[in-house]
């Protein structure tokens, strides 16, 4: 085990073992990790994964934690075809394989469940992962805080956590931007002010907002919410990109 020098709290690389895997979509897989020494996490946080090749080459990426606090560490990873880390995690990692992780990381994009405001979650693709930790946390603690998820996917088959989302007691609005199943009556447009005006809490509710997705997605969604009269400080955003790979 390698320890990284840091002042105050030490951020330590821990050895994690793969303890289970779930195929979420053809391109996305969830890995349950057994992490001895893990300190626990808050909903919305991420961790860093480091892989070391036999020749010593190291590659490191960040992945959001999809599991609720106190429910182990599960990462949901999307395979990027030219990635250095995600193809291994999605296609090759088997039970018992070991990887290095450090975390949890982040004190900004988190929801603890005791905030009074209604919650709006806005997800683009695998940006749903940290938001799923919040939705699961809400269900687990029996919170009555109103929560809604507006979730953009390319197609119905690309919807991550599709079945479980229906069972968590939150209001879910899907939009399918590339391909819709026959008879689809839901949205098929990219998330923008017009769509958000239809479905999101009115600004008068002063909701607490979490937006996660690609940079372009996050910027469009946040701009749309500002158009609806949301205030910038209500909106917490997390852009990914380097999280893949």
């Amino acid at each position, binding site marked *: 085990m390698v320890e*990284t*020098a*840091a*002042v*105050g*709290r*030490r*951020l330590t690389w821990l050895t994690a073992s793969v303890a289970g895997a779930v195929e979420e979509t053809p391109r996305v897989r969830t890995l349950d990790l057994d992490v001895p020494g893990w300190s626990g996490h808050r909903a919305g946080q*991420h*961790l*860093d994964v480091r892989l070391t090749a036999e020749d010593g080459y190291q590659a490191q990426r*960040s992945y959001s934690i999809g599991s609720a606090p106190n429910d182990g560490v599960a990462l949901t990873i999307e395979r990027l075809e030219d990635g250095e880390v995600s193809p291994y995690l999605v296609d090759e990692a088997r039970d018992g394989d070991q990887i290095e992780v*450090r*975390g949890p*990381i*982040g*004190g*900004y*994009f988190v929801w603890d469940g005791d905030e009074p405001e209604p919650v709006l979650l806005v997800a683009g693709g695998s940006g749903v992962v940290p938001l799923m930790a919040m939705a699961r946390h809400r269900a687990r603690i029996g919170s009555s805080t109103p929560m809604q998820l507006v979730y953009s996917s390319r197609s119905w088959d690309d919807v991550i956590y599709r079945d479980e989302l229906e069972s968590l007691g939150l209001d879910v609005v899907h939009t399918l931007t590339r391909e819709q199943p026959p008879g689809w009556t839901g949205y098929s447009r990219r998330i923008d002010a017009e769509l958000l005006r239809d479905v999101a809490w009115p600004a008068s509710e002063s909701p607490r907002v979490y937006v996660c997705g690609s*940079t372009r997605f996050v910027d469009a969604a946040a701009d749309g919410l500002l158009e609806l009269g949301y205030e910038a400080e209500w909106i*917490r*955003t*997390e*852009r*990914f*990109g*380097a*999280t893949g*790979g």
Partner: protein
Amino acid sequence: MHHDLKLDGNAIGGLMLELFGSDMTGAGSTCGGCGAHEEMARLDVYTGAGIVVRCRHCEAIMIRIVQGRGRTWIDLSGTATLELG
């Protein structure tokens, strides 16, 4: 690593935690250029050969980080203040 990929301060949360020893995504920052105050998670981050952190309001460079040969070089000359919780 993608070149000039625009992310935000969440993406360097692990590195900043390693360097500063406490969570920096929620740390307050003041831009040395325009004086805007934002949590670090809300700053624009570009990753390439090194890391460049820019003010989301005036786009001035606030922080540059370069790592190599086991050392880390941090240029904070564009940042007026950092406030750790």
